[in-house]
Every structure is written in structure tokens, then in C-alpha cells.
């Protein structure tokens, strides 16, 4: 290949990065945004009111039970989501009706309750994909069949992992790079920046990429499990491997007996759970077969309780109110547990505010690492050509345009998703779909724009557009809802206010980039015009 191991790895790193860089930028950015998925959900459903105070957990449980007994006494399953943790800003209930001819799984209905009075809140009008859709894009993409999307993302992640390992090999001085940044030196600064972003959060990048791959173990080499197992007893190979890997849930929950029996009060069961797990550890309560002699009540812990998703639960007899089983969850052997722990680290559901901030920070660093890497590719080549006085060829110009469309276009597209959430008519039929269309149409436009606009101008203009698109979101929120900063800050509605302020700050960051680039551009233009003057002109001027 090239002379020497490190040189050939540098070559490999460069080209692996270029092949998948744009898609990885998309994966990293939408994935990073996912660390705020619940907060985005909250902002995108402004019709669900903010409740400054709520009843105690026990009272919430009683309110929910009363409401469910009124609206869904014959349901197959009740679900109660208690307020607590970052996942649950609202008291929510859901019930699944018994399966019938029309609906084999049974229809599920959701309701949000006032956490003080228990009265249902009407908030179903605004259909939105919310933060969930946004973060799921990082592995499901959009518009593509799921299998295809997953395979594309898997291949990109495999290349990402190889790109990171080769990137590490290229670096002689990992420790030194950590303290090296020489700003204002053109190409050298970009490389320093790329190194700093990569090395500074290297453990995060490694873990998040490798654990991301673990989600695809089955898709990566599907032939192997299919040679080892065959579908039997109604179990597909996939299901067999899944159950073999993660265990079959230990607790078996009794089915309906068909004999009516009143459901005991749920609140006292919560006291028992508190003695088992400690206070305020419950997030959801599921009631199977309410009103039946075999009613079972399942208490589930907050996902922040363990790094791997907690799969233990406490199961009560719904009629006698006695603890039936303190289910530790399926037994998982070490490699299965390692798998779940790494995936838990990937999702970061366990992270509190400080860790969550670090997750975001490193996610942004990773996104910037990919972005600077992409810019380096074309900058390095353009500089070489500049020395030989050649014009950049088609490949470089294409990369340049794709870089702009991705690095600035994607953030603008995400902002467009938020704008669509507020601007599309609330009662619109295909509203949630059009939120997504708005995002991807904007992205497409950002790719098209630099085709007929001079590249450097397009950079500055799109950066300003991004700045405006984010910085004006709080204003848009004020114009279209009653939940603007003046209200949310006063009420102590921190999620709403926090989102608005984060968007404002994001807009300002883009504005700073735009101003810097504009300045650099004007300096460059003067130097070019200076150098183009003949010596005679310079002497006379």
C-alpha cells in the first residue's frame, strides 16, 4: 500500500471517513438530539398543560385507579405512568381493550390526567412524531423500509468503528493532541480541532459506536444463527436467539379466570414496593385483568435505576393485594449482561442531569469531529491544488456542496421540524407526516442551494439561516402557544423554558460561526485582490 503502516492507515481513515461521513454526521446528530428526546416530546406537545403541583404518588395512583375503573372497567390491561424522573412529566393512563375480531391485540387508548384532581386533560389534537421520531431516525432513517434503513446504518457503523480504530492508529501523540490547539492557522487549526474533538471524547466515541453495533449483532451475520438453529415449535430463529440471549421472563403472570372480583386499592401495594426498592423508584404500574379474580398488578422501576434497562418488577395479587412475586427479571449470563450494559450506556436512560449534559456535549463533539473530518478532506485537497495553481475538480466541488448541505443543512432541517410542529394546522389530517416532510424538504433544499450559489456565500447565508431558525423558535413558541418564556419561567415550567433557551443559545452559536466566517471571507477577498494587482498598480495606489 503506502510506505509504512501509519501512512496506509491514514489513507484508510481518510477514505472510510469520506464514504460514510455525511450519513454518520446524520446519525451522530440525530442520535445526540435523542438524549433530549423526552424534553423535545414535551415541547412538541404544548397542548398538554403544565401542572405546577401534583398530588403525592399514592394519591396519583388512587386518582388513576378511579379514572380507569370509570372509563375502562372491562379492559384487558391498564397502564399507569406516574409522574417522576425525566421520562414522566405527566400523570398518564392507558388501557388496552380485550382483543376482538376487529383488533387482535386489542385497542389501546391513552389519557393524560390532571395530577391533582384526576380529571382527564384533552390533548390529543396535535399529532406529532415528537422527540421519539427524531431520535429513532438515527437508526430507522426515514422513507426507507426499516430493514433497509437498519442495514445501511449498520454498514455505516461498521465503517465508523474501523474509521475510529484507524484514526487512533494514525495518532502518535494521543496525549499531546489532547492539549494541542493552534487556532487561526488555517488547515493546521482544522486538523488540531478534529484531533481535539476526537481524542477529548474518545472513550465516549468508542463506546457509543461499539455499543451501537451491538444492536445489530443479529443483522450483521444472520447466516450463523440460521445454521445453528432452525425454526421450531412456532419459534423463529430470531426469537430463539433473543430468548436464549436475554432470557425468558421468569415470572409468569396468570391469565384471566373469568370470575369477577373487585380490584383492591393500589396505593397500599406501593407502600410494600417502597420497602422492597426504596422510596420513589416506581415509574409504571400495570394491571392485568382488572376486575377479574386473577387480577395481577405489576410495578416497574424507573429506567434510571440501573445502567442496563432494569427488568425486575414486583407483582401483586390484584384482589387480595398481597405480593405474589418479587421478580428479579430473567437470568442473564455475563456476555448477555455485558451486552445489555453497553446498550444501556448507549441509550443513557440512566443518566441524571449532569451526565445527560455530558452525553449531549460529547455527542456534539462527535458530530463536530465528523464535520471537521469532512471539511478537512476537501480543504487538504484544495490547498494542494492551490499550490499547483489548478482548479478543484468535480469530486472536490461535490464534496464541498454535500458538506454544506449536511453540516449546516441538517441542523436547519431539524429546526424546520420544530417550526412545522407549531405552524401546521393543529387539526390537519396528515400533520405528523408533514412535520417530517418539512424536515426532509428543507434538507433537500440545503443540498440544492449551493449548486447555484457560490460556495462561500452559501456557507455564510445558510449559517445565518440556521441562526435565525433556532434563535426565533422561542418567539414562534410565544406567537403560537401560551407557553412562552415569560410564562414558563414564571411558572417554573423548566422543560419548556429550558428548550426555548437551548434553542436560543443554539441560534447564537450559529450566528457566531456566521460572523466569523464572514470576517474571514472578507479578509481573504482583500488579500486576493491585493495579490492580483500588478506591482505597478500597487506602487501607484
Amino acid at each position: 500500500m503506502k510506505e509504512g503502516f501509519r501512512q496506509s492507515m491514514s489513507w484508510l481513515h481518510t477514505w472510510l471517513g469520506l464514504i460514510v461521513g455525511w450519513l454518520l454526521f446524520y446519525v451522530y446528530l440525530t442520535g445526540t438530539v435523542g438524549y433530549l428526546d423526552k424534553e423535545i416530546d414535551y415541547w412538541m406537545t404544548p397542548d398538554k398543560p403544565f401542572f405546577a403541583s401534583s398530588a403525592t404518588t399514592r394519591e396519583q395512583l388512587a386518582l388513576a385507579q378511579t379514572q380507569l375503573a370509570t372509563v375502562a372497567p372491562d379492559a384487558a390491561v391498564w397502564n399507569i405512568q406516574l409522574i417522576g424522573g425525566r421520562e414522566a412529566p405527566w400523570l398518564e393512563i392507558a388501557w388496552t381493550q380485550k382483543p376482538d375480531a376487529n383488533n387482535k391485540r386489542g385497542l389501546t387508548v391513552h389519557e393524560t390526567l390532571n395530577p391533582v384532581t384526576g380529571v382527564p386533560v384533552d390533548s390529543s389534537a396535535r399529532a406529532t412524531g415528537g422527540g421519539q421520531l427524531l431520535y429513532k431516525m438515527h437508526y430507522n432513517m426515514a422513507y426507507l423500509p426499516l430493514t433497509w434503513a437498519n442495514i445501511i446504518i449498520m454498514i455505516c457503523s461498521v465503517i465508523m468503528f474501523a474509521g475510529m480504530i484507524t484514526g487512533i492508529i494514525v495518532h502518535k501523540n494521543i496525549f499531546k493532541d489532547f492539549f494541542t490547539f493552534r487556532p487561526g492557522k488555517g488547515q493546521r487549526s482544522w486538523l488540531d480541532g478534529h484531533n481535539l474533538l476526537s481524542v477529548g471524547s474518545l472513550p465516549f466515541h468508542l463506546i457509543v459506536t461499539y455499543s451501537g453495533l451491538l444492536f445489530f449483532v443479529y443483522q450483521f451475520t444472520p447466516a450463523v444463527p440460521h445454521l445453528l438453529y432452525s425454526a421450531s415449535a412456532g419459534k423463529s430463529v430470531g426469537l430463539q436467539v433473543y430468548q436464549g440471549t436475554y432470557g425468558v421472563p421468569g415470572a409468569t403472570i396468570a391469565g384471566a379466570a373469568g370470575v369477577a372480583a373487585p380490584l383492591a386499592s393500589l396505593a397500599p401495594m406501593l407502600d410494600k414496593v417502597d420497602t422492597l426498592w426504596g422510596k420513589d423508584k416506581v415509574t409504571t404500574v400495570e394491571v392485568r385483568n382488572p376486575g377479574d379474580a386473577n387480577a395481577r398488578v405489576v410495578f416497574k422501576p424507573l429506567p434510571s435505576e440501573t445502567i442496563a434497562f432494569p427488568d425486575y418488577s414486583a407483582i401483586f395479587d390484584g384482589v387480595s393485594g398481597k405480593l405474589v412475586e418479587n421478580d428479579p427479571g430473567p437470568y442473564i449470563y455475563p456476555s448477555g449482561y455485558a451486552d445489555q450494559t453497553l446498550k444501556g450506556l448507549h441509550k443513557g436512560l440512566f443518566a441524571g442531569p449532569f451526565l445527560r449534559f455530558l452525553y449531549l456535549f460529547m455527542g456534539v463533539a462527535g458530530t463536530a469531529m465528523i464535520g471537521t473530518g469532512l471539511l478537512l478532506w476537501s480543504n487538504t485537497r484544495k490547498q494542494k491544488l492551490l499550490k499547483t495553481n489548478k482548479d478543484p475538480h468535480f469530486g472536490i466541488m461535490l464534496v464541498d456542496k454535500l458538506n454544506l448541505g449536511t453540516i449546516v443543512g441538517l441542523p436547519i432541517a431539524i429546526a424546520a421540524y420544530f417550526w412545522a410542529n407549531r405552524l401546521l394546522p393543529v387539526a390537519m389530517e396528515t400533520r405528523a407526516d408533514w412535520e417530517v416532510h418539512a424536515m426532509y424538504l428543507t434538507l433537500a433544499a440545503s443540498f440544492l442551494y449551493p449548486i447555484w450559489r457560490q460556495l462561500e456565500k452559501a456557507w455564510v447565508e445558510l449559517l445565518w439561516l440556521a441562526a435565525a431558525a433556532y434563535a426565533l423558535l422561542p418567539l414562534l413558541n410565544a406567537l403560537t402557544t401560551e407557553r412562552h418564556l415569560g410564562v414558563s419561567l414564571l411558572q417554573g415550567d423548566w422543560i419548556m423554558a429550558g428548550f426555548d433557551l437551548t434553542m436560543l443559545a443554539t441560534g447564537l452559536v450559529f450566528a457566531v460561526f456566521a460572523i466569523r466566517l464572514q470576517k474571514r471571507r472578507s479578509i481573504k477577498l482583500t488579500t486576493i485582490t491585493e495579490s492580483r494587482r500588478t506591482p505597478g498598480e500597487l506602487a501607484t495606489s
Partner: protein
Amino acid sequence: MSAALTTAYRLSIFSRVLAASVGAYVLINLANLALSILLPFEQYKALLFAMQTSFIYYTLAIIWVFSVRTATKAWLGLIAVAVPLALVDAYYYFQGALP
């Protein structure tokens, strides 16, 4: 780099890309199957362990393919590892001894 952009160079790159994508992928499948059979764990544990670590072997294979001096050597290296693995896999497969 411009001097190196000969047809031979391009062919070498193409061959290596093929080795890294198709060749190394086949190798990883063979390795996963062999590990699942040979590792002294229960079946699922062995399979999961093989699948979990396959990304690391794959990366190593890619690095091998692009670091050696010639594309031929890259292929030979992959084949040298693949053949014993394939023999192990075939032995168990045709014996019907797959679990």
C-alpha cells in the same frame, strides 16, 4: 498521489476494497460459526460472544487488507485464516454435529 494513480494502483485498490468487504465478511461468518461451535460455553453464550466480538475481528481484517504491501498478499492472508475455519465449520456441519 497523482503519480501513483496508475491503472495498476486503481486495480490494487479495487481488489483490496473487494477483499475488505466481501472477503473479510465471509471470513467473519466462518469465524463466528467456528467460535460458536468451539467455545466451551453454552450455545447461546458462545454465539453471542462470537457475534459481539465479530466487529473487532472485522476491523482487524480491514486493517490487514489495507496495510500489507500488495493486494495479493491481502487476499492470501484472509484465505490463510479462512481455510482452517472453513474446515472446522465443514467438519461439524457434514457430521450433522451442529448443536
